[in-house]
């Protein structure tokens, strides 16, 4: 709903696309609960996924959610983008296990590692994880390693990133890697890719322009409520 929350917390819960809150680990139990409901309603072949960063694996909700999903054997695919930094905090200050996948093993959850800069590898590993979960294999844990090439937000110049990491294979730009792969395989030419880029940019620019032309919410007209049953609302006490 416009103006209620920042635009990265989007979602369409009625269509199964959960709207995240800032506490990312907290979405694991929510997706698990949605899957539990689907099972209770007798739906089969369902799978659910949620994604968080290396920092999110340190939250209590991550551990509680993954464990509860494992106990219920829910078809949950949990994807960790291990991008080496949670805001400015490097992995060495985030966890002491040798590998993030160790966290899943402790809960009896199969874990998969993949080079997060390699699109083809990601598609293959994620595809297998999704299939396994869908077929009754319980939760699957996928860690893709890569390096965040920009800041945590637009305000962040990410000067804290170790130059050695930028120069390492983790520091590859996954889009450039994928383009080179497509060209090498002769699946697309450089000109075609440049065309796709222009097409995508045009679409994004047009959408941004459309949204910017929409009026801002007017506090005098905008109706917003914390409760769907408005008769119970107490917004009137706002002095």
């Amino acid at each position, binding site marked *: 709903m416009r103006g209620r929350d920042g635009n990265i917390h989007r979602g369409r819960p009625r269509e199964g696309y959960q709207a995240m809150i800032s506490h990312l680990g907290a979405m694991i*139990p929510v997706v698990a609960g949605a899957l539990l409901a689907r099972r209770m309603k007798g739906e089969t072949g369902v799978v659910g996924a949620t994604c968080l960063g290396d920092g999110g694996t340190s939250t209590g909700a991550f551990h509680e959610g993954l464990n509860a999903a494992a106990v219920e054997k829910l078809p949950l695919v949990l994807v960790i983008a291990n991008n080496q930094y949670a805001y400015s905090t490097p992995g060495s200050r985030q966890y002491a296990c040798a590998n993030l996948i160790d966290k899943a093993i402790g809960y009896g959850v199969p874990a998969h590692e993949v080079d997060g800069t390699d699109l083809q590898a990601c598609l293959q590993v994620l595809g297998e994880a999704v299939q396994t979960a869908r077929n009754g294999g319980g939760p699957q844990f996928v860690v893709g390693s890569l390096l965040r090439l920009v800041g945590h937000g637009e305000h962040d110049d990410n000067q804290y990133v170790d130059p050695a990491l930028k120069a390492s294979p983790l520091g590859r730009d996954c889009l450039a890697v994928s383009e080179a792969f497509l060209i090498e395989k002769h699946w697309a030419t450089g000109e075609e890719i440049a065309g796709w880029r222009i097409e995508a940019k045009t679409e994004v620019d047009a959408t941004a322009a459309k949204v910017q032309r929409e009026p801002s919410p007017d506090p005098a007209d905008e109706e917003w409520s914390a409760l769907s049953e408005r008769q119970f609302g107490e917004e009137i006490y706002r002095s």
Partner: protein
Amino acid sequence: MISYLQALNAALDKLLADDPRVFLYGQDIGAFGGAFKVTKNLADRYPGRVLDAPLSEDAIIGMAIGAAIEGMRPVVEMQFADFSTCGFNQIVNQAATLFYRTEVSCPIVVRLPSGGTPGGGPFHSQSMEALYAHYPGLIVMTPGTVEDAYSMLLEAVAIDDPVIFCEHKFLYNHLKAESLPDVALPVGKARIARSGRDATIVTHGAMVHESLAAAEELVEDGYEIEVVDLRTVKPIDTDTLLASVARTGRMLCVSESWPWGGVAAEVLARVSTEGFGLLDVPAQRLNARDTPVPYHPDLWTAHRPTADAIAASTRHLLEM
């Protein structure tokens, strides 16, 4: 005779029987029937719909939210209200904001076995209604009678928004009624538990009964004390409070929880700002002492408001 606890069990039984969307999730609530036996026999009667959960309040509430988004009506049990702090984030940031953020409602009920019992101690005695009432997006119920335990739990599941259901452990087995009710006051409506003309005691939960006992004690002194049971602390029925104060001119609010920013503080704020002219003397409040809840029964009795303490405070109010 049916006890407060049996009324809760009967309500859950009816909900499970009537509505396939309802399921129960919580620690030890399955075959064991729950730490207090509120869910006794329900796992047997409704296979696959009364689920034992790991010791993970965050996951329990988060999963209830996800299931509610998918159209279910989950009722989750926190083993003790005190343990809901471990699921606090899911309640106040996820459930309470869902409709505001997405216009998709979040019909979950979080049952909180609340309040003090002898020997409960600091972590098995808390009353958390003020904490949850502070957050927009939650309905907070504090049933103080067998009838309300039953009818308000049915209502809580029918409501499309998240409901924090503060059932009182002290009343579980102590409080009994002849039968279950067919009709009930609407949600958000307070109840005049006893009529009177000399002073109003506003209260909720187990304190309703301590306050009624205090009012009875004051009959010997020739006083007629009105007792108002809030039933829901959010929304709060300011109209009924003001109407009572208009009759009596004096008000004491009694709450089992701590004083700072509590339900009594809110009641006093409402009555003082909206009904100042109705008061003959300043409104008063009586809360638990501002310390953790003590373990030893003697200390516990001194910690929370009792009938004697309420009677003393009411006498003070009447003599002002």
